[in-house]
């Protein structure tokens, strides 16, 4: 696996949505490529820091309404697909 291929898989890897054989290849790459290890580790920290930051604190009520509006849209999206790509 090359560094560019690693980068393309990084999001799937961090989200845990990656097939087992790609994961093994990726972790093998991380075991010897220090640069990619640092990129992976600091990207993970970036996500954690923002997740814990409460920068986007919403009232519970608003969050619930937002969520249900998105779910409703999700149903339509499944039927018709995205308007634009």
């Amino acid at each position, binding site marked *: 696996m*090359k*560094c*560019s291929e690693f*980068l*393309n898989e*990084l*999001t*799937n890897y*961090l*989200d845990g949505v990656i097939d087992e054989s790609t994961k093994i290849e990726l972790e093998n790459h991380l075991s010897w490529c220090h*640069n990619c290890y*640092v*990129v992976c*580790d*600091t*990207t993970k*920290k*970036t*996500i954690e*820091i*923002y*997740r*814990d*930051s409460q*920068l*986007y604190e919403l009232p519970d009520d608003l969050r619930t309404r937002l969520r249900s509006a*998105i*779910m409703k*849209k*999700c149903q*339509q*999206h*499944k039927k018709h*697909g*995205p*308007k*634009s*790509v």
Partner: protein
Amino acid sequence: MRIAVNEALMKLRRKKPERTVSLDEDIKTEDDSLPREIADWSPNPEQQYNQAELREILSKTIQGLPPGFRTVFVLRDVEGLSTEETAAALDLSVPAVKSRLLRARLQLRERLGRYFQRRGNEDSGIVDGKRASGDGNQ
């Protein structure tokens, strides 16, 4: 004919070095290139700053992202929506969400690196140019 063959061989030879990735060059992804900053961060970077400073840094950094990337990052990584939900909410395809999320994460990481980078003397016990001996002899 021979000239054409030689020319082709030269081109192939010239191409070879691209197989290795230079740290000084941008990395090509599907639709764009991403700059690359490799320096490692301190173990607990967020603890280098107080709460107000940290909020300021995080807010300023995320504001610097293109709005299309920022929205995807906030919905996926802060609000915890799935890729499919984010795609539906923004009328995007799933691959478009994934691509934006990757670029948003990498750009934020790089920008935060300016604040969170491991300092050269951090592990040597030297703080602000003085050795942090902790003895009370002064």
